[in-house]
C-alpha cells in the first residue's frame, strides 16, 4: 500500500529533514507516527500525501512509484487518499458543507451533482464530529478546533483507502478527540489504511497500534504500543485525562 525506500528530504538552506527513511505499510494497517518537534513527521506525511517529492529515495503508493507515474494515474491515486494536513487548509470562501462536498465531488469526478445519499453522508459525517450545526457557516469563521474537525470530515467522507492525518486532534478537547479517533478506528475496521501523526501519548496508549518513531529525520523505533520516548516528560498527558 505505502512503500518508502531510503527517502531523504532537504528543504532549501536547511538541514536534512528526513534521512534515509524506509517504511512499509500494508493494506488495513493503523500506524502512528510519533516524534518530537522538527523530527520530520509532517514532512514524511506530506511526501506520502503526494504534496511533496523526496530529495532522494522512492515513494510508492498502491504499487505505483510516484516519481514515474502519469498525471492521470497520480490524480486517480490522490482520489483514494483522505488527507488531513496539519494546517487544515479549508477553503475559506466555502461553507463547511461545501468544503466537505467539494472534496467528495472531486473523489467522484463523473457525478456532476451531489446525490441525496451523498448529502446524507456529508451530514452524518458532520454530525459525528459535532459540527453539523455549523454546516452553513463559512469556513473562515470557524475556530481552530472546528476547522480541524471539518478537515477530518472532508477526508473521511471520501471513504478513502488511505487516510493520512497530521496531528488531527491537536486543537480538540477530550470529547472531540475520542469521537474523532473513533471515526479513524471505524474507517480502519472498514478496510482503510490509517497513518496518523500525533503528540498525544494518551491516544497511543489507549488505542494500541503500530508505532513509527521519528527522531531527527531518522526512523528509529517501530513497535506496537507506547514507545519508550513517549513515556518521558517531554510529552505530557492532556489535562483531565
Amino acid at each position, binding site marked *: 500500500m505505502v512503500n518508502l525506500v531510503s527517502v531523504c528530504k532537504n528543504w*532549501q538552506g536547511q538541514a536534512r529533514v528526513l534521512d534515509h527513511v524506509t517504511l512499509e505499510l500494508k493494506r488495513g494497517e493503523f500506524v502512528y507516527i510519533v516524534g518530537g518537534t522538527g523530527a520530520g513527521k*509532517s514532512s514524511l506525511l506530506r511526501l506520502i500525501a*503526494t504534496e511533496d*517529492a523526496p530529495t532522494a529515495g522512492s515513494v510508492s503508493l498502491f504499487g505505483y512509484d510516484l516519481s514515474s507515474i502519469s498525471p492521470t494515474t497520480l490524480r486517480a491515486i*490522490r482520489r483514494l*487518499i483522505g488527507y488531513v494536513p496539519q*494546517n487544515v487548509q479549508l*477553503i475559506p470562501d*466555502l461553507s463547511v458543507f461545501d468544503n466537505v*462536498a467539494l472534496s467528495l465531488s472531486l473523489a467522484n469526478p463523473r457525478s456532476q451533482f451531489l446525490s441525496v445519499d451523498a448529502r446524507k453522508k456529508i451530514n452524518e459525517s458532520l454530525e459525528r464530529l459535532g459540527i453539523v450545526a455549523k454546516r452553513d457557516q463559512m469556513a473562515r469563521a470557524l475556530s481552530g478546533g472546528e476547522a480541524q474537525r471539518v478537515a477530518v470530515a472532508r477526508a473521511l467522507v471520501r471513504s478513502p483507502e488511505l487516510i493520512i492525518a497530521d496531528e488531527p486532534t491537536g486543537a480538540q478537547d477530550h470529547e472531540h478527540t475520542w469521537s474523532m479517533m473513533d471515526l479513524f478506528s471505524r474507517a480502519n475496521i472498514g478496510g482503510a489504511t490509517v497513518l496518523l501523526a500525533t503528540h498525544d501519548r494518551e491516544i497511543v496508549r489507549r488505542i494500541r497500534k503500530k508505532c513509527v518513531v521519528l527522531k531527527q529525520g531518522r526512523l528509529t523505533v517501530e513497535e506496537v504500543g507506547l514507545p519508550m520516548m513517549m513515556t518521558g516528560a517531554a510529552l505530557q498527558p492532556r489535562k483531565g485525562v
Partner: protein
Amino acid sequence: MIYLLRLAMRPWRVAPMSQIFSAFVVGFLVLFSGFLFWMEQGLKPIVHRLQGEQVITAWLSPDVLESDEQALLKQVQDIVLSTPGQRSQRYPIDFRLTGSAEFLKQIEKPYPELARQVQETQGEVKDLVPRYITLSGVFEDAVLEQVKSVRGIESAESSKNRHAHVVGAYRALRWVVRILVAGLALALLTGLIHLARMNAHLHRDALSILRLWGAGPWTLRAPALFSGGLVGMIGGLTSLGGWLAISPWLLQNLKQLSPMLSELEVPRWEAALSLWAAGIVIGVISGSAGAWSVAGGTAGEVGASDEVGERAQSTARGTA
C-alpha cells in the same frame, strides 16, 4: 462548478478595488482601441479613393469627324468599364465630350476676343480648337493606357497623384493608429496578466488542496479563468456602454474636421458587441496566463513547490 465560481470570486472579496479599477481600465483601453481601429478602417476607403481619384483627359485626333464623336465617346466608355476591376469601383464615373462648339462656348465668356478670332478662321476651326473627352472618377491604373489605345484618341493624360501628399499623410496616420492599437493591447495584456497572477496567488492555498484531492488541470485553472473572464466582461461592458454613448458625438466632430472625413462610416452596434467580446477574450487570456502559473506546471506532478513546503515546515515548527 458552483464551488469553483465561488473560488473565482475570492479576489473580488479580498481585493475588490483592484478588480474594479482593472475592469474600468480594461473598458477604457478596449474602447480607445476600438475607436482607433474604427478610424483605421474608416480611413482605408478614403485613402483608396484619394489614390485612385483622377481626371483623364483624352484628346481627339483632328481627323475624327464631328459625326463620329459620339461613337468615339461610347467606345471610350465601353473600354473603360471593361477594364478589370473597374466595375467594382463604388464611385461614379463621369464621361464628358467637349466638341469644338462647346469649347468655343466655354471660352466665349472669359476670353471673348479669343473666341471671336477663332470663329473668324472658319474652316480652320476644326484644327485649331481642341476636342477632348474627360473622364472623372476613381480609375484602375490600366485605364489610362486603355484609353490611349482607342483609335481616334491622339493622346491622353491623367491628373493622378495630385493628392499624393494627402495620401501619404493618411497612410502615416493609419500606421500610427495600428502601432497605437498594438501598444494598447500589449499594455492591457501585461496589466491584466499581472492582475491574474495576483488573483492566482490568492487562490494558491485552495488550489493546493484541490490538487491533493485529485482535481484535474482544468478544475485547477477554472477559478483564475473565471476571475479573469469576469474582469474582462465588466471591462467589455464598460467599453460597450462608452461606445454607444460617445460614438455619435465623436463621429459628428470628426466629420467637421475635414470634408475628406465625411465618408467615415457610422459606428455600428455590432462593433459595440465586438468590444464586449474583446474584453471577455482579453480577460480570459490573461486569466489563463495566471491559471497556468498556478496550476499548469504542477497539476499533474508530485509536490507543489519548495516554497509551500518550507512554509508548512515553519508553520509546523511554530505550532508544535
